[in-house]
């Protein structure tokens, strides 16, 4: 398996404060990587460097390299919109557009030039099926997306991200705002998507990391403390700090 | 810093506005006459208080000069409300002012409702064009044809090849009434613009090289050119001797049976006496006294 995304000596500053210190990480294709750590440790910040969403924050400075398919994404010749199409994102709080379900899913493809009704119909259906929500909404595609429940909205957002056919899907604490049943549905969904997509998921919930991820990265105060196979890391953490976090002594 | 700048600017602007406030004569009427809020005449014992006049915008200069002179003589203030002839007639009829001012003779029904007219002076109505216009005189017939739309281009009168732009006053204006009745174009004028004061007409004609308009002779300055009518240049003499045809009476309107206040009666006597002739002439109109 090759590494679809890598980070080399990645440092990030918000103004004067350094949020990421020398991150080195390889993300393998078609795997699920979990990023864990206490609040403020930099895991969400790191996630956002992978699709350059940090660019939107004023005063951000980045050094080092992040490569997608072996090309530095911070190079000035990179088309950031194309990058974001290939590296999609799902946010912590479900944020469907105030439009119909159909228009939500079709938004991405339409932005990228697909106008034909037939094509869009296919894409919408496929995305909703991939997100395991097709059966629930197929009769109400024209209804406003904000009428769905929290869990449904989040699956809708996943479908919306999948509609542009990304290779990597970044998920920023996608289930922290949801009830347990919705949470387990989304975890199932993620595991089902693994064979076609690469997933990087930030999670506050260690059990979730244990349940679904292949590799886990433990962040603390902007540093990548430990990174490796999930099972190994949880059974025999190499670093003392990792052990302390996992056993719940802080966090 | 911002606040200081704002404060300084405000003070500067206030000062410049105040410096523009000039004499204490009646304010020039360049905006549309609103419904006349004429003041009621103060009941004056032994010539104190004020005299209120209301009406024709054309009479502004005359009444202004007379009022000023009267004030200097007796100390009584004369107020003037430029609301238009029709409104002035209404105002005196309703008792809202002492003396109404009209730049046309009273209609029969107005006389019948108990109003009396006293002719103060005769005002020439100048036919004005832009100073750049080569035309210098027209006949009454030509003027009528221009205003009814029969003649539409200055070239037909010997001028430039340009469409004639007809400026006039709004329906009900004394000046319009005077103009239309003398030229025989009542209800037939094809105005391009109907403005609500003599001042507006003059300003508009001064700005448009192809415009023609009519305005009280007293108000015309050198921003526009007054045409000769039937070869007669409008001036005080030609109005007086009647050779300048386009003229109308300036009328003082009072209500029959209503006694004027002492101050108002005194003012009335003053302005209709020969004592006032010089002032009336100074305002550019021909006294009837």
């Amino acid at each position: 398996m090759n590494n679809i995304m890598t980070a080399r000596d990645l440092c990030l500053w918000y103004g004067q404060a350094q949020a990421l210190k020398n991150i080195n990480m390889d993300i393998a294709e078609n795997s699920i990587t979990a990023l864990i750590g206490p609040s403020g440790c930099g895991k969400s910040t790191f996630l956002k460097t992978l699709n350059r969403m940090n660019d939107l924050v004023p005063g951000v400075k980045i050094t080092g390299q992040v490569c997608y398919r072996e090309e530095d994404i911070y190079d000035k010749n990179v088309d950031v919109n194309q990058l974001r199409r290939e590296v999609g994102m799902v946010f912590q709080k479900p944020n469907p557009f105030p439009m119909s379900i159909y228009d939500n899913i079709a938004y991405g493809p339409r932005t990228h030039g697909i106008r034909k009704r037939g094509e869009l119909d296919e894409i919408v259906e496929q995305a909703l099926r991939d997100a395991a929500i097709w059966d629930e909404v197929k009769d109400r595609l024209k209804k406003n997306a904000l009428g769905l429940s929290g869990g449904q909205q989040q699956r809708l957002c996943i479908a919306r991200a999948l509609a542009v056919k990304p290779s990597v899907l970044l998920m920023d604490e996608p289930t922290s705002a949801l009830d347990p049943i919705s949470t387990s549905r989304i975890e199932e969904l993620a595991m089902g998507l693994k064979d076609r997509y690469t997933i990087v998921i930030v999670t506050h919930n260690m059990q979730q990391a244990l349940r679904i991820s292949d590799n886990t990265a433990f962040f603390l105060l902007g540093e990548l403390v430990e990174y490796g196979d999930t099972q190994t890391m949880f059974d025999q953490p190499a670093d003392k700090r990792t052990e302390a976090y996992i056993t719940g002594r802080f966090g | 810093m911002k606040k200081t700048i704002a404060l300084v600017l405000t003070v500067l602007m206030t000062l410049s506005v105040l410096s523009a406030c000039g004499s204490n004569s009646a304010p020039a009427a360049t905006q549309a006459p609103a419904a006349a809020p004429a003041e009621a005449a103060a009941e004056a014992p032994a010539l104190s208080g004020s005299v209120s006049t209301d009406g024709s915008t054309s009479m502004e200069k005359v009444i202004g000069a007379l009022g000023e002179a009267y004030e200097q003589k007796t100390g009584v203030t004369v107020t003037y409300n430029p609301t238009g002839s029709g409104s002035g007639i209404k105002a005196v009829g309703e008792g809202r002012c002492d003396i109404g001012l009209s730049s046309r003779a009273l209609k029969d029904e107005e006389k019948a409702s108990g109003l009396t007219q006293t002719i103060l002076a005769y005002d020439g109505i100048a036919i004005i064009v832009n100073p750049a216009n080569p035309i210098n005189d027209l006949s009454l017939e030509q003027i009528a044809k221009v205003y009814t739309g029969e003649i539409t281009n200055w070239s037909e009168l010997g001028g430039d090849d340009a469409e004639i732009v007809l400026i006039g006053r709004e329906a009900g204006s004394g000046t319009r009434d005077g103009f239309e009745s003398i030229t025989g174009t009542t209800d037939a004028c094809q105005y391009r613009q109907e403005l609500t004061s003599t001042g507006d007409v003059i300003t508009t004609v001064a700005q448009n090289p192809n415009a023609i308009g009519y305005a009280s002779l007293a108000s015309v300055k050198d921003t526009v050119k007054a045409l000769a009518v039937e070869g007669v240049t409008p001036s005080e003499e030609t109005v007086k001797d009647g050779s300048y045809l386009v003229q109308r009476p300036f009328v003082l309107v009072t209500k029959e049976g209503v006694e004027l206040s002492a101050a108002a009666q005194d003012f009335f006597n003053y302005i209709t006496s020969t004592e006032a002739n010089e002032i009336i002439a100074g305002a550019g109109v021909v006294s009837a006294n």
Partner: protein
Amino acid sequence: MERAGIAPRPFRKGDNMAKKKQLVENLVHGLFLLLGLITVGCVLLITLYLVVSGIPAIREIGLADFLFGRRWASTAAEPAYGILPFILTSIYGTAGAILIGVPLGFLCAVYLAKMAQPGIRNIMESAVSLLAGIPSVVYGLVGMLVLVPGIRRLFHVPDGASLLAAILVLAVMILPSIIKVSITALEAVPREYEEASLALGATPVETWFRVSVPAAKSGIAAAVVLGVGRAIGETMAVMMVSGNAPNMPDLFQSVRFLTTAVASEMAYSAGLQQQALFSIALVLFLFIMLINAALKAFLKGSKEG
């Protein structure tokens, strides 16, 4: 068991202190109700007065002749009182002002809310506020001295005072309110929508026009309503630039609006002419109410959609 501190007091209404408080409560309620009623009363009074003053002329002239008659000659020997020219002029004038003012103001708002640097934004917002404070008569004066000759020279028409001049002046007058309300509406759109759009690979401009603007729709509609209200009621500025002849509306023709029709003839009017002017005022009033109702209904409909 006794509690330390405040001495226990019975909760009964008969208590003096409670009675006083209740009285004050009632008084204040009553006062506010009265103030509200005064406001409503004023509106009712005006409506009533307009109806009472406006109906007689309509009755005498005939509703159809009045509303659809094309000739207005109130002081002619054979008077005609058709106000269709005024109605159409007001409609066209307002529509024209909206057509120019809304896109201009709205795009300006998008620029100020999303794209402008803070320094530039401050300067431009101050300019907009200043524009909002300029009185109508100043607009009219500038229009008369600058715009009217300008139109005459630019379009080679005999006279620049026209519907076009009025539309331009009105458009500028409604800009500030449209800009301000639109900016508020745009800034109220949650950031999450924009983030989601960007994460899908849309450019910032695409995001603004495909997500932010539709989400701010009702605020922008409110801005349009404000603009329409101001445009249709404007008298002073329009009177100084539109020529005031009672013609059927045409872009370069001298025209008269419902508002200026009332203002220009009211001073000299008497008899049926005066009553007819009241009727025009009544029509104007009904117009404004109709437009407000229609826009409200439209807003409601789009919200539920």
